[in-house]
């Protein structure tokens, strides 16, 4: 597994020929219940669905691309639900990183994260979203986290631009 693209919108797979493209509209996954049972069971989630495989892929790949609608400075609901299931990829114990307490990710493989946020996004919402990414990537071994925002109508064009980024 080299690269992974996760999208909440139907996109052309031709842009990312070296990646596995996961369209959240085409997979089945339950909502996380937040009981943290998975942290007690060393990463074994109660639900056995498509997320069982995707959360493993997330650990193993070197480049992750998120294509998500941004609303109120946050991921939209389907994407947020998917991210909540990734709690299985965290250690239960707390560690200090950059002067803050956090859970370390179980995979220490260095990886890159590119987030393409689309929708009608105001400047302050972009800032909130970047803060959110800063918080949620702490403890995970990302060598870079990049964010790009665009209107929904521009998304196809933007994906054409970023298409091929997974060849590197």
């Amino acid at each position, binding site marked *: 597994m080299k690269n992974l693209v996760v999208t909440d919108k139907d996109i052309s797979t031709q842009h990312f020929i070296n990646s596995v493209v996961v369209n959240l509209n085409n997979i089945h996954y339950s909502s*996380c*219940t937040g009981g943290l049972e998975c942290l007690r069971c060393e990463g074994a989630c109660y639900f056995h669905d498509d997320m069982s495989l995707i959360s493993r892929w997330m650990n193993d790949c070197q480049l992750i691309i998120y294509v998500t609608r941004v609303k109120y400075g946050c991921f939209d609901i389907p994407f947020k639900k998917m991210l*909540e299931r990734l709690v299985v990829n965290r250690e239960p114990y707390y560690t200090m990183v950059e002067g803050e307490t956090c859970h370390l990710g179980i995979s220490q493989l260095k990886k890159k994260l590119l987030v393409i946020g689309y929708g009608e996004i105001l400047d302050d919402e972009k800032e909130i979203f970047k803060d*959110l990414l800063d918080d949620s990537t702490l403890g995970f071994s990302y060598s870079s986290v990049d964010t790009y925002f665009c209107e929904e109508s521009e998304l196809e064009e933007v994906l054409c631009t970023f298409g091929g980024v997974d060849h590197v």
Partner: protein
Amino acid sequence: MSKVLLLSSGLKHTQEFTDPFLRRLEVYLSSYLDCVDVRNILTFDERTFFEYDKVVFLFMTAMDCIPSSTLEIFQKLEKQNVNKVDIYALIACDEYETEKCDVSEKILQKWCEKKDYRFKGSLKIGSTLIIMKSTSKYIVSNYIKKFAQAIMNNQEAHLRVTVLTEKRFLKRANKYWYKQVKKTKKEKAKDEK
């Protein structure tokens, strides 16, 4: 007399972590107000949202951010008529730093701004998994009381509380998880036998 809704909007099973806060807040508010209603994501009816003067969202952050269950409530309310409601939030996180609740508050604030609700502030609680098992629970109760008073008096609230020191947090919280993992392993081994 104002009507207050305490809306436990966290993920289904995180509500057990925020329940001690909810119960205390309910007790403090009920001693002064006649109408304090408590709902969760399963019992919440969006059609009744605008019958309240004040709504308090209570949730624990999920993956360092506002939980999807709260976003779903926002979505349900999009279809409802707009009315002036005061919004407060009690946000809890499992890490030591209450700053981990800041992004969730900003998102809630942004939603209020867009929907023309008045955001009146929050109480942020850190170290949620262990704080009510330590002596800090008395301090937390005090903060919840202050928060309840702000709600009753229509005042803004910007409160935050966590366990006393970072060192103590790391020791106690890691011990908590160590015990939880050990207990689960034991139970599993018992089931296998």
